[in-house]
């Protein structure tokens, strides 16, 4: 499974989100590739799942794959609750 963590530049908040997602995957005993991407290239990259903020989620959701909007990207509890539906 490949998960894309998306932010504006692919360098700031997406890296924090990637850390949170990886931590959650570990807690859930799941393995997945988590990569960061910037908003402008995210749509063209292959992925099974996208995690991002609320603004980008609306724009990236083209119906082809699940897009999860996270309010607090460092909150592993929130990420776990939203991710658990799709992994495992």
């Amino acid at each position, binding site marked *: 499974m490949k998960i894309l963590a998306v932010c*504006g*530049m692919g360098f*700031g*908040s997406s890296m*924090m989100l990637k850390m949170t997602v990886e931590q959650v995957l570990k807690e859930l005993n799941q393995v997945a590739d988590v990569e960061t991407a910037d*908003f402008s290239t995210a749509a063209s990259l292959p992925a099974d799942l996208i995690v991002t*903020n609320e603004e980008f989620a609306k724009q990236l959701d083209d119906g082809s794959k699940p897009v999860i909007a996270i309010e*607090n990207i*460092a*909150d592993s509890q929130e990420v776990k609750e939203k991710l658990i539906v799709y992994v495992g």
Partner: protein
Amino acid sequence: MKLNKEVIRVGQLASDWEEAVKQCGQLLIENGNVEARYVSAMVETVHTLGPYIVIAPGVALPHARPEDGVLQQGISVYILRKPVSFSSDKEAIVFIGLAAQNKVMHLNLMKAVAEVIGDSEQLVQLKKARTVREVQQLFDKESG
């Protein structure tokens, strides 16, 4: 992670997000972390990409790219008395200015920041911090 008191301000007033981002960036300039143009890039990023730098309720992470003028990696913490809004549903009271030189070093900084804002209790303490020491203590955790 130990933070100098020079990169922390509490109880600040700003009329809008742009002023808060500039003041937060000014701390990075004064501390020798970034060139002045980096702060302009921070502001420009919000204009271009929208308020996505609000990474948690009430917390903004203004930053730009390493090539926008980072001299030495680091963060600054700028806390307002009252939140300023970015959009109809996004506001921030805590501004964490980020200067990163590359992705690897960057991870350690992000980890330290994530530990504070990912914990709802610590996040509340950060938003309410009224002294520089309180902020230093929140960030100065075992993981360094």
